[in-house]
């Protein structure tokens, strides 16, 4: 099982595209694999005949463990390497849904500790000595969870051993399962659903973020009337044109991304990452857009938004959204953001605060546009179209005043959309 994404530790073999006995060319697709982020095609590294498959469809396989043998016709496959055991997906003990009603006693579970490595940045190569890398791989400890104490923050053997020891002493939790419903019609069947790769990574990353980043929250209310007008007039002109002549349907979100990047020009100090010993100022605005998918969410990245036109942004977001739904996003499209936006307006949520997506220093949460009585410049009470934007900031790198300055710049642009033309 090759490593197909930089945070992947296991892969689920979704389907075999080659059967035992079939000829395989080098570079030919032999299987589809679900990583923590996407479903990807697995190419054969060698040419030959597929002698045997060590894993079945649906099996979860650790990185480095054998999945099949390719050789000459009639050649006997070796038994899989003991060092990399295979693991079948088995239902978890079910402590959350309480399916283990056969025991009342608290059950002990192992939780991999997930401290946020201050010096590691997704997308950047983690500095680790060859020996540390080897031990971490053998012990199944993701390098990004280990803080390096060697020169230049390099992860060395001692750090991996410390992480192993910490893992075995700190990670035992006791959880008493809730009791099963005793009578009446249940709201759902009592089942235990194995955690998917995506769910696991969501759990891990958000827990890391919430545990280690000192979040603070700001809100700002935006008068969205001018924005709605601009959008309506642009769409009116462009909606019916064929795409090759500029035809497009712009969403409020497209404007929001544009405004978000514009505001960064004024307050670039928000476009930063906390690196432990330094604060990294990013030169470009790369916006991760949270997109809900069937069993979780993904955050594909629109790069260099500060250089792109509204129509470019709009087209790109649409493409990424389609890829996200089909699980076809490449690891490249999922990393390297400098800020994240998330929108729950379509559910009528008027305001909320999201969890920061490291190594970003902020996440913007966009609520629904709702009609409200507002007071206009002449002190008349009128019906306003209001939108609340939430800002969750990392206080280590972006102080409250700075976050507020950014939000106010964002408000100014959204309320005077002509500023986006500049």
């Amino acid at each position: 099982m090759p490593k197909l994404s930089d945070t992947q530790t296991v892969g689920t073999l979704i389907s075999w595209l080659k059967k035992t006995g079939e000829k395989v060319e080098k570079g030919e697709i032999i299987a589809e694999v679900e990583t923590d982020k996407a479903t990807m095609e697995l190419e054969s590294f060698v040419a030959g005949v597929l002698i045997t498959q060590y894993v079945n469809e649906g099996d979860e396989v650790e990185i480095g463990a054998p999945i099949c043998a390719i050789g000459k016709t009639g050649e006997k496959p070796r038994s899989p390497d003991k060092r990399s055991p295979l693991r079948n997906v088995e239902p978890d003990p079910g402590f959350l849904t309480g399916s283990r009603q056969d025991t009342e006693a608290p059950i002990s579970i192992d939780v991999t500790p997930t401290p946020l490595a201050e010096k590691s940045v997704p997308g950047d190569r983690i500095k680790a000595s060859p020996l540390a890398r080897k031990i971490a791989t053998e012990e199944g400890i993701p390098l990004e969870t280990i803080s390096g104490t060697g020169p230049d923050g390099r992860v060395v053997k001692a750090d991996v051993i410390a992480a192993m020891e910490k893992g075995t002493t700190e990670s035992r939790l006791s959880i008493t399962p809730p009791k099963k419903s005793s009578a009446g019609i249940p709201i759902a069947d009592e089942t235990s659903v194995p955690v998917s790769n995506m769910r696991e990574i969501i759990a891990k990353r958000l827990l890391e973020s919430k545990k280690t980043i000192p979040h603070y929250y700001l809100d700002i209310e935006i008068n969205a009337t001018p924005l709605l007008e601009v959008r309506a007039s642009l769409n009116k002109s462009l909606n019916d044109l064929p795409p090759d002549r500029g035809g497009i349907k712009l969403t409020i979100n497209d404007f929001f991304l544009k405004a978000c990047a514009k505001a960064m020009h004024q307050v670039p100090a928000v476009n930063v990452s906390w690196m432990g010993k330094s604060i990294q100022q990013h030169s470009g605005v790369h916006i991760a857009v949270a997109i809900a998918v069937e069993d979780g969410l993904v955050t594909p990245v629109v790069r260099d938004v500060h250089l792109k036109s509204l129509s470019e942004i709009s087209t790109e977001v649409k493409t990424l959204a389609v890829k996200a739904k089909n699980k076809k996003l490449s690891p490249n499209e999922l990393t390297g953001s400098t800020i994240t936006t998330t929108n729950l307006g379509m559910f009528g949520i008027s305001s909320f605060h999201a969890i920061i997506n490291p190594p970003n220093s902020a996440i913007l949460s966009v609520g629904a546009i709702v009609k409200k009585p507002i007071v206009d410049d002449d002190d008349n009470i009128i019906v306003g179209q209001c939108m609340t934007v939430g800002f969750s900031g990392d206080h280590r790198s972006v102080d409250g005043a700075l976050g507020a300055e950014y939000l106010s710049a964002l408000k100014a642009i959204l309320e005077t959309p002509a500023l986006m033309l500049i």
Partner: protein
Amino acid sequence: MPVIYYRDALNAALDEEMIRDDRVFIMGEEVAEYNGAYKVTKGLLDKFGSQRMLDTPISESAFSGLGIGASMMGLRPVIEFMFWSFTYVAFDQIFNNAANIRYMSGGLVNVPIVIRGPANGGTGVGATHSHTPENYAASTPGIKVVCPVTPYDAKGLLKTAIRDNDPVCVMENTLLYGMTGEVPDEEYLIPLGKADIKKEGLDITFIAHGRAVLTCLKAAEILEAEYEIDAEVVDLRSLRPLDEETICDSVKKTNRVVLVEENKPYCGTDAQIAYIIQDKAFDYLDAPIKRISAVDAPQIYSPVLEKEQIPYPQRVVQTALSIL
């Protein structure tokens, strides 16, 4: 065990081998009447006579060529060079002829010659007398190279070199001739291609040859006394053949390595050793391979600056600390 000088250990090796095998003879500038420029051949003229102790004109190319011819005809010459720096005028004889005759003759003709002399800087004799050409020699297929640091190693390696059927370059050091060490009375040989762990340790490996081994031992003492760091010191002894096994085993044990040599850095022996380590022990490295060589410049004449040019213990200590 008797404690003797390095130069006397070499003398004993020559003496014993000349007694053992009457085909062995010594040739070079001032080796006979003057007892050798550094007194390594002291007393051998009286003992073995002028047939086997030959003083030559100052013509390195001629007498090394003569030695190679004699070895091809079945004798076993030991050629002394006053400095290894002077082999440069005999480059063709040593590195072209001696190195290739066995191969060119399809294995019919051996060249059992020993070429020995001091190859070191650090004595203020200037750029043209201070070369350390072990890397030139060791990069030549067909040539064997040893660099003994202790009297014990000097004797054992020289005896083995004389008995070897291929050209062997023995690189000594004028700063070591006056050093003492234990050498047993009974006969012994040290195989070529076998490194020696001069000090065992767990935290970091120093790999060195020649006088740099002493520098590393001193650095290991400082690290132990001041930093509680337990360094291992591997003395290569032979550069070709090279004991890759001992090198890699030590790196696998300590996971960190500093290579120390008095040679110049560019294309030096330790560059090759660094390559071997990353190739064969990559997954055991917990830090980058570090290397300390002489400062990359012609050997400096000023004694003050030359002292800085050649690796010294504090430099090894600082480099070790940078990766610990």
